[in-house]
């Protein structure tokens, strides 16, 4: 425990009076008290959207896919756009909870819980579009490897759509297991503070967790291995999603760049959604001491990186279309930028390529309001990216006599707006009944990375009058002393 972190690192928990108990109290405040007015307002709006989803889905299932704006040229449009958008959003949660765990990035500890909840709800929304776009969702089991009634004909394991069935369902299941196992110690905390019915319910949900040293040892072991499994899993999921397009022969889809390009885009959009959600959550639930400006800053840096990868990918696609010498491919890209859907293309470029570059400025990167606004832009831009890829490639391909335009009808718009409703209903219920911050993991940081720990360390150093070459517990502190002096000057 006595491993002190360098003073160079910004504290991950701010606030002067943080104790273990205060962490519990702060995080559980929304769980143990009646919800605030803001929560009810948000929940009402989300329920309204959920109602729209129900009506639109009813219309789709009762009357069939003819209620959508699809035609024989454009057979995939909003449905798959929304599907890919939601799956992509989910990826940031896994990146934060798994990949950053493997890289020992401690700043993930206070955001991983809600980010992973976001993953699960986003994947649920994505899955809902799979069922919606089937037209006959009661036959969804046809996608599973079951012998059908007309002979032992199986699903075709050569098809990326079958890979997708396996990828999405595995991703959802593993994320859920990972998330829930992480939740158990915190649910036990709620159980041990509650009485009556609440104690019973949280007791059942806590699976009988005691926090004994053996349980913790196994807990850490399974968390690490699940993180190790989730890391290639999350990369595989969006790779496979991209192969739904890339293995076809449609101009604009048939490119080998798709897997890395889609994965980068997924992480990009997912982090934007994490920002959108957490900036509101931290303010409404008063968790600013745990989800600090530094967290927002670090996430914005990931957004710059992935956003730039996406930008380079757009350029590469365009270049390769020209360089390939394939006329159809060239036309697909010219048509994207200058054809009837030019506005979608340029919305995408503005939102995804230009807006994240503003994060190079530290003022913008560390501004809550600016980050929130840009994160909304990115969410919109990433939706347009999928729309552009899907619709502009389909609406004009090899046979000009089959060219057509696609316009959404209210049912499709309703399902999309409604899926936001599903997502926010689930997310708001989550922050109401479960701890939105992984308390145990944040408590782990209190002694090493919190502001009070750093202040204490600084005070200890101030007492050592001999400036250099002093060693504390075998550790040379020259560097930290120098930094400290520099900081004083800045102050």
């Amino acid at each position, binding site marked *: *425990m*006595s491993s002190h972190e360098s003073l160079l690192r910004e504290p991950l928990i701010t606030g002067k009076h943080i*104790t*273990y*108990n205060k962490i*519990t109290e702060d995080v559980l405040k929304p769980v143990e008290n009646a919800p605030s007015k803001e929560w009810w307002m948000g929940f009402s709006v989300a329920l309204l959207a959920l109602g729209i989803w129900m009506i639109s889905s009813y219309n789709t299932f009762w009357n069939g896919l003819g209620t959508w704006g699809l035609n024989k040229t454009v057979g995939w449009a909003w449905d798959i756009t929304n599907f890919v958008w939601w799956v992509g959003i989910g990826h940031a949660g896994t990146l934060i909870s798994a990949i950053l765990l493997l890289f020992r990035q401690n700043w993930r500890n206070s955001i991983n819980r809600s980010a992973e909840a976001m993953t699960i709800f986003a994947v649920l929304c994505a899955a809902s579009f799979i069922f919606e776009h089937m037209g006959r969702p009661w036959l969804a089991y046809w996608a599973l*490897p079951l012998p059908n009634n007309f002979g*032992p*004909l*199986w*699903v*075709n*394991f*050569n098809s*990326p759509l*079958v*890979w997708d069935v*396996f990828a999405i369902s*595995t991703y959802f*299941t*593993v994320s859920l*297991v990972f998330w829930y*196992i992480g939740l*158990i*110690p915190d649910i*036990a*905390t709620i*159980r*041990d*503070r509650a009485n009556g019915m609440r104690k019973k319910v949280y*007791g*059942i*949900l806590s*699976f*009988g*967790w*005691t*926090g*004994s*040293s*053996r*349980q*913790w*040892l*196994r*807990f850490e*072991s*399974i968390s690490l*291995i*699940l993180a190790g*499994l989730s890391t*290639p899993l999350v990369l*595989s999921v969006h790779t*496979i999603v991209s*192969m739904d397009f890339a293995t076809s022969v449609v101009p604009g889809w048939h490119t080998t760049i798709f897997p890395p390009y889609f994965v980068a885009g997924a992480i990009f959009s997912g982090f934007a959604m994490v920002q959108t959600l957490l900036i509101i959550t931290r303010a409404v639930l008063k968790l600013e001491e745990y989800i600090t400006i530094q967290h927002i800053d670090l996430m914005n840096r990931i957004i710059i990186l992935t956003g730039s990868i996406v930008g380079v990918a757009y350029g590469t696609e365009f270049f390769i279309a020209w360089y390939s010498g394939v006329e159809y491919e060239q036309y697909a890209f010219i048509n994207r930028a200058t054809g009837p859907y030019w506005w979608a293309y340029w919305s995408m470029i503005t939102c995804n390529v230009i807006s994240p570059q503003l994060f190079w400025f530290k003022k913008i990167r560390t501004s809550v309001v600016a980050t929130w606004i840009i994160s909304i832009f990115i969410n919109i831009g990433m939706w347009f990216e999928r729309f552009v890829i899907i619709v502009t490639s389909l609406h004009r391909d090899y046979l000009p006599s089959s060219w057509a335009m696609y316009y959404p009808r209210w049912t499709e718009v309703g399902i999309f707006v409604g899926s936001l409703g599903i997502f926010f209903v689930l997310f708001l219920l989550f922050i109401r009944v479960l701890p939105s911050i992984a*308390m*145990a993991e944040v*408590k*782990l940081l209190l*002694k090493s990375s919190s502001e009070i720990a750093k202040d204490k360390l600084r005070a200890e150093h101030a007492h050592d009058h001999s400036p250099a070459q002093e060693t504390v517990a075998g550790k040379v502190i020259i560097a930290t002393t120098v930094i400290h002096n520099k900081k004083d000057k800045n102050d």
Partner: protein
Amino acid sequence: MTNSKYILGIFDDPDVMNSGIDMVNNAGIKIHDVYTPFPIHGLENKLVIPRSRLPIVGFCFGLLGFCTAIALITYTMGIDWPMDIGGKPYLPFPNYVPVTFELTVLFAALGMAATFFWVNRMAPGISPIIMDPRSTDDKFVVALAINQTKSEEELNQILRNAGAIEIKVKEV
């Protein structure tokens, strides 16, 4: 484990508890278990808990998933109903990498999670022995079994010296 008596030393700081555990260990007293609100690294060495074998379990289940996927795909695509797709091979294994990978991960994760619950004796509805409810909040509880060579008072004294802020006896 019926009717055993434990003496609990309750600490409010993990560092104090860590050095306290050393003192208890030095006094030659066996620690029953330690209950903490978050994982304390290095505790497994002090309490001589062997490394968790969950990674091995994960590997075995992963292998099972891998074999299941290969068996399923080979049977359906190559034996039961081979399809001639443009004269290509019946079993193009590169095409089967994604599904094989997903099933490997799925089996490994689910198998490991089930084993985790099994060895921890965890399931919905189990009512555990909670030594002190504060141990999931901000207290660190060191539990010593009482039926040892030392008397209750001696254990009490050792825990006090070790830095426990509170001592209590728990019968389960």
